[in-house]
């Protein structure tokens, strides 16, 4: 069984937002709905300051609060690690939106929450998610952690990595390369 995950080397990000647009095209999203976003922050101390960019999306948590709180299992975790939403089972209570610590869920016009799907369906055919393939700087690496020969597995060993808000116990499957690591 695959164990899908993503590694983001945020230090390489130029902030072009092509990933966000590619994802919106892939899923035909309206302009105000997006599954991934770029966070900009200031780092360092004057006069030695710089801007850092951190891409954020659904972390496909291994301990996903969104799925724990969902009354009908509309949000569920697949064996391969993807956290998905079954639109037909969703009652639109927004409990998952409230419970997600990463603010990645948005409601669509049908009263159903949406978020990154790790491009389920495409990745099974061996394709890469467009946010990965469109990136000119190879900021994102998507792959199978159970396959020691996957690019992801190799890259994960090269540099120290961290997860966002790991202290919340969500066990995210999106990893970030430590800056200067």
């Amino acid at each position, binding site marked *: 069984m695959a164990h899908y995950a993503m590694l983001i080397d945020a230090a390489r990000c130029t902030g072009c937002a092509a990933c966000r647009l590619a994802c919106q095209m892939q899923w035909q999203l309206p302009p105000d709905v997006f599954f991934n976003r770029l*966070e*900009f*922050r*200031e*780092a360092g101390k004057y006069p030695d300051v710089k801007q850092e960019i*951190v891409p*954020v999306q659904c972390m496909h948590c291994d301990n996903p*609060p969104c799925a*724990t*709180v*969902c*009354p*009908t*299992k*509309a949000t569920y975790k697949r064996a391969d690690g993807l956290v998905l939403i079954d639109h*037909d*089972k*969703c*009652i*639109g*209570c*927004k*409990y998952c*939106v*409230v*419970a*997600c*610590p*990463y*603010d990645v*869920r*948005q*409601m669509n*016009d*049908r*009263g*159903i929450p949406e978020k990154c799907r790790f491009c389920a369906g495409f990745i099974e055919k061996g394709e890469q998610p467009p946010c990965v393939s469109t990136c000119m700087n190879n900021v994102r690496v998507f792959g199978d952690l159970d396959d020691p020969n996957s690019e992801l597995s190799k890259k994960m060993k090269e540099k120290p990595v961290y997860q*966002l*808000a790991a202290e*919340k*116990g969500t066990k995210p499957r999106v990893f970030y390369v430590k800056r200067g690591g």
Partner: protein
Amino acid sequence: MPKFERWMALPGVLVLAGLAGAVNKLIYGEHALGTTAAVPWGSLIAGYVFFAAAATGAGLIGAFAHYSGRPALASIEKPSLFLALSMLLAGFGLIGIELGNPLNMIYIVFSPNLQSGIWWMGFLYSIYMGLLMVECYFSQVDPANKNLKFVSAVAVVNKIAAVCNLGAIFALIATRPFWHGFYFPLYILLTAVLSGAAALAAAMWLSARRQGREADGEVMAALGRIMLAALVVTALANAGKVFLGLTGGDPALREATAAMVSGPLALRFWALEVGLGLLVPLALLAKAGGGQRVFRAAVMVLIGVFFMRLDFVMAGQMVPQVVVEGVQHVLMHGYTPTWTEWALTGGAVGAATLLFAFSETRFDLGTGATAARGKAGGTAAARV
């Protein structure tokens, strides 16, 4: 067909406004609400919590009247059942409209997630509604039925479980420090009793006025005493919550508490929740006085508790979550209820009022309104 009485025009207009709100929500969906991805729960959730908790509180007081055997409270047993049912139905109406896909609730049965507080809420409150219907039925056809004792006992356990679980829906969300912890399930139980007593006092007083008589002084005084006790404990609990919130170690908890006492929610918190909802009723109830004084305090308490629910739901979501260290787009997330939400909330108040009034004339609640239906009902109502 229930008979129209002049005073019913007001709740009737509220129901019509609510229907307009419901149509608007059906057409425009989430866009009809003031909620956002950052503040997904708004006044309709607060309104639902208000009605569900008040319905539970009214039921608990009815059970207390039943088991305590106090003569002063005997006459509220039946009205408490019908009032609880009316408020619960109004609450269900609100949540049904708030939900994006209420028809998918069928999956609560076919694909249950027993870890979910909302699943338990659906389960426990459905049982509560069923038990209320059974109790209402027996109260009409066979009040002395020996099975009723068993049903009532199960209902008491169910009520406490239902309302505490309602609190746990919020309290179990670890990522929202203002809600998280054991405090809210207990607090909602306490304030459910407060709002339940207030709703009962208001209903008993209005019911008597509808028939052109004064409300039973002993009943009103007993309900006033329950409200007074609940108000004192609520005031202490609020003070404790604010103190611990402001001095606690969690910055998000501190900010949320500050938002309530000195931030964007402060005016509503001090003026409506504390002033109108706690202090003025406390002052009114501390003095001896007639039913009218208790009625006034009850109405203020109901308004105050509604805003208490709203403030609670808001304060838990207003402080932005820290996803990336050092990134904060806004100081506080904003939320303003839309006209649709106000109309729906008003509609629920109107619906609960009319449902209770109709059940009063249709069934024998012991309030005298059944008899008034054929005789003085119409003219008496004109005096209200």
